[in-house]
């Protein structure tokens, strides 16, 4: 047997047990928070969890596979509208959306099937859009996905019968609570973690590091890129759907280019490809921009938080271009969850 890998590869059970324990502890903290803190803080926490989930899901493309995509808000918009139309109370659809096709006008789904369908629709869109768009590299891909945001926005503005145009849908049932947001974040983190530390994840990173070499060791890079893009789109759509069921309104401008920028900043500051980094950066930026809001209002400098986020990005790019954790994960976390067997310095 080889000298390089120990005969006793650590059992996956250990990683699962650690993950379950940490998740349980976090759940206890969430329970405590929602029992003791104000509604405002609880909602803020839910938004924070969703932002963390979004940043982690952007890592599939921008982190692991090295595709600089800005398309997240497009898929979130798709997910938001699809889910909102599906969960909207049947009796109010007649007044709000009189032009709705028969089968949509008579359905009223609960949240879980609605967000799953929303995710699936966005995944199909990503699949179709991916064929031309993923042929592009670097800035070209960024610009193309930026265009996708604009296309989806104008579609949402002009497809009146389904979307109610520019005024958007209001009074969406407030079905998302902190537990939905928390649970979804855990699902996204677990999925990202499992993929990152698997053969498929290595294939993604190989595609990022050197596409030609990846092809030549038998990795179908077109397929891998598509997979990352579709996965990211699915999770983005579900997050977009959950968020509008928290703020109970969606317009074509709910998820804009600015959000794409903020999400990219979270990924870059956390370290492209780092899951824990994305969670930390997303949490920090969410809390920071919320904490600065009263300051903005008192001083009368609206948009200051956005300026600070942009400055933070410039600082990080200047002082630590690889972000908080580079493309890796902090060692203690890797040890705990079993992602440490093949990486650098065990």
């Amino acid at each position, binding site marked *: 047997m080889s000298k390089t890998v120990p005969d006793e590869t650590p059992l996956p059970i250990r990683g699962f047990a650690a993950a379950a324990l940490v998740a349980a502890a976090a759940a206890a903290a969430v329970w405590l928070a929602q029992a003791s803190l104000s509604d405002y803080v609880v909602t803020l926490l839910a938004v924070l969890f969703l932002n963390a989930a979004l940043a982690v899901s952007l890592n599939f493309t921008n982190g692991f596979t090295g595709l600089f995509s800005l398309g997240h808000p497009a898929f979130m918009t798709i997910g938001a509208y699809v889910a909102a139309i599906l969960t909207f109370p049947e009796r109010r659809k007649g007044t709000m959306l009189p032009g709705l096709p028969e089968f949509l006008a008579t359905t009223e789904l609960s949240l879980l099937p609605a967000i799953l369908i929303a995710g699936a629709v966005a995944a199909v869109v990503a699949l179709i859009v991916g064929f031309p768009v993923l042929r592009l590299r670097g800035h070209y891909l960024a610009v193309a996905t930026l265009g996708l945001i604009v296309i989806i926005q104008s579609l949402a503005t002009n497809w009146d019968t389904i979307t109610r145009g520019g005024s958007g849908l209001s009074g969406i049932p407030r079905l998302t609570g902190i537990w939905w947001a928390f649970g979804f974040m855990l699902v996204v983190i677990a999925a990202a973690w499992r993929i990152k530390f698997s053969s498929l994840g290595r294939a993604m990173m190989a595609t990022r590091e050197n596409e030609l070499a990846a092809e030549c060791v038998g990795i179908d890079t077109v397929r891998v890129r598509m997979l990352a893009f579709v*996965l990211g789109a699915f999770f983005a759509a579900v997050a977009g759907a959950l968020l509008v069921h928290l703020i109970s309104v969606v317009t074509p401008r709910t998820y804009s280019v600015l959000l794409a920028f903020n999400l990219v900043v979270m990924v870059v500051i956390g370290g492209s490809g780092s899951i824990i980094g994305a969670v930390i950066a997303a949490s920090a930026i969410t809390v920071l921009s919320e904490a600065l809001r009263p300051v903005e209002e008192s001083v009368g400098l609206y948009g200051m938080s956005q300026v600070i986020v942009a400055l933070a990005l410039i600082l990080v790019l200047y002082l630590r271009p690889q972000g908080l954790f580079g493309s890796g994960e902090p060692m203690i976390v890797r040890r705990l969850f079993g992602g440490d067997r093949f990486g650098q310095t065990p």
Partner: protein
Amino acid sequence: MTEAIIEAHGLSRIFGGLVAVDGYGLRLAGGELVGLIGPNGAGKTTAFNLLTGVLKPSAGRILIRGQDLTGARPHVLARAGVARTFQNIRLFSDLSALENVMCGGHMRHGSSLIKTLAQLPAFWRSEKLIARRAAEIIDRTGLSALAYRRAGDLSYGDQRRVEIARALATEPAALLLDEPAAGLNPSETQKLVELIRRINEDMGVSVLVVEHDMRLVMGLCRRVQVLNRGKLVAEGTPAEVQADPAVIEAYLGTRRKALANA
């Protein structure tokens, strides 16, 4: 005669008005070790890129174990059993040496998305298999001490060996090495020659080597092809090739030959 792993007929590639490779042919049988030499700009690397699907041929056919794969993408040829290294090393720099080699195992043993996300037992079995096989190859290529080092931080010679190890992890029938000794010092070159011999003899992998280092090719290969200005000008044992006037012309030009004869 053993089964041909790679058979190429009349391969040509035209870049604009330049005919980089013109009617190149190759029959690489199981267990063979063939050298491809030629002066700078002769089209060796282009021929290599054609054989591995990196470039599509303008004309000609490529058969891998009898299967016509002309114009197929590189990963299809890799799956069929053709592995390669690059003249300018192309590693997955941010991954460890071991992870680089494990990437080579993905094609044969990697789990699908569903199996990975569902964490089925089949996923863990395949992960273990990939790790074990990669570790074996790492040991065989003498990289054990460097397994967990970031590939981009390794020395040039070690990077070359990681690249060969990664190619071996794809379980190839034929390994194509593009100037493997470029930039190596004599002792590193010696180690490399031994490694190529072991790969060919012990692991039974057919090898095609493009090389500049004449001594290396002549000592290593039993059959040598010579390419000049995109055309095959000679093919045979090292001794035959060295005596071939067309080869001498290719390397030295005609005027010098005339001088030497005078």
